[in-house]
């Protein structure tokens, strides 16, 4: 096994007898490995000593207040309507974005700002009427 890997693992698991012998003999002759061991020990001490933070003094009071509120008590009706409200907000936001994009696209495509262009309705031209006239003239 890689000796450095063994060194790191020696802090967090019990090494076998052979592994301990290998690591110790390497530590005796390898200065860099020794330095690495000291550095790891330093890092671990720093992390350990940096812990132990506490919540604010009114943590428990606030917790019990939340627990006794409708949402905290596992009121499923409240949770359901709350989720529905959130889902609706997202749907409404997506719809607004869709409408804005559609209007922008239609205005750009048709080239003017009007009620018809907003919905992608092209202005009817006489050529369109002529097409109809020609179509019916076939039957005459």
């Amino acid at each position, binding site marked *: 096994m890689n000796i450095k*890997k063994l060194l*790191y*693992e020696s*802090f*967090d*698991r019990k090494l076998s007898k052979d592994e301990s012998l290998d690591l110790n003999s390497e530590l005796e002759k390898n200065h860099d490995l020794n330095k*690495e061991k000291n*550095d*790891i020990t*330093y*890092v*671990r001490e*720093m*992390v*350990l*000593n*940096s*812990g*132990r*933070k*506490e*919540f*604010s003094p009114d*943590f*428990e009071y*606030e*917790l*019990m207040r*939340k*627990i006794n509120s409708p949402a*905290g*008590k*596992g009121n499923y009706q409240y949770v359901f309507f709350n989720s529905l409200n959130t889902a609706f907000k997202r749907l409404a936001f997506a719809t607004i974005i869709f409408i804005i994009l559609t209007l922008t696209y239609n205005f750009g495509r048709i080239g003017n700002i009007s009620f018809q262009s907003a919905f992608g309705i092209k202005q009817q031209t006489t050529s369109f009427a002529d097409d109809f006239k020609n179509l019916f003239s076939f039957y005459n």
Partner: protein
Amino acid sequence: MSIEIELENLSDMDLVLKSVSGDQAAFSIIVQRHKSKIASTVFGMLGESMEAEDIGHEVFIRFYNSMGNFKGESALSTYLTRIAINLSLNELKRRKKNIFKSFFNLTPAEIFNDISRKSMNDYEAKEVVDKCISQLSPKLRSVVILRLMDQYSTEETAEILNVPVGTVLSRLARGQKILKELLTPYRYDK
């Protein structure tokens, strides 16, 4: 008063059973017993922030609402820490998704990058470690917090994170290598 002392002598499992039957005093003892460990985990994962306290509340609220499912197969502290880790990881994901982050609201990691080695001496060692830990990915961070800060055994850490012991060992090694790179210059500059 005597009832409270009586409750304090009960085991975690007995307190859970009492809490399930609606005894909020028993639940309060559970909170008192485990809040320090949860605080250490949550603050370690998220740093000192407003959200950390809310996540702490959420841990106990989730447990309160699902106490009936707790069968005592693992220690209560392990069970609560697992909830705390999962909620903290969700919060980290949410923070990552927040693309509307203000340019003026730098994360500790960004602040840390701007600090020269010289000015780093002015910082409290705790703050330096916090900033270094915040540079780790959530996966490495959770292992470092549980094993090195909260002092869970390697096996307990694996159980909380639901990963094999080998994964914990390799993540610990990677996490410590990164922390070593970040912290040792501070050590030799002191």
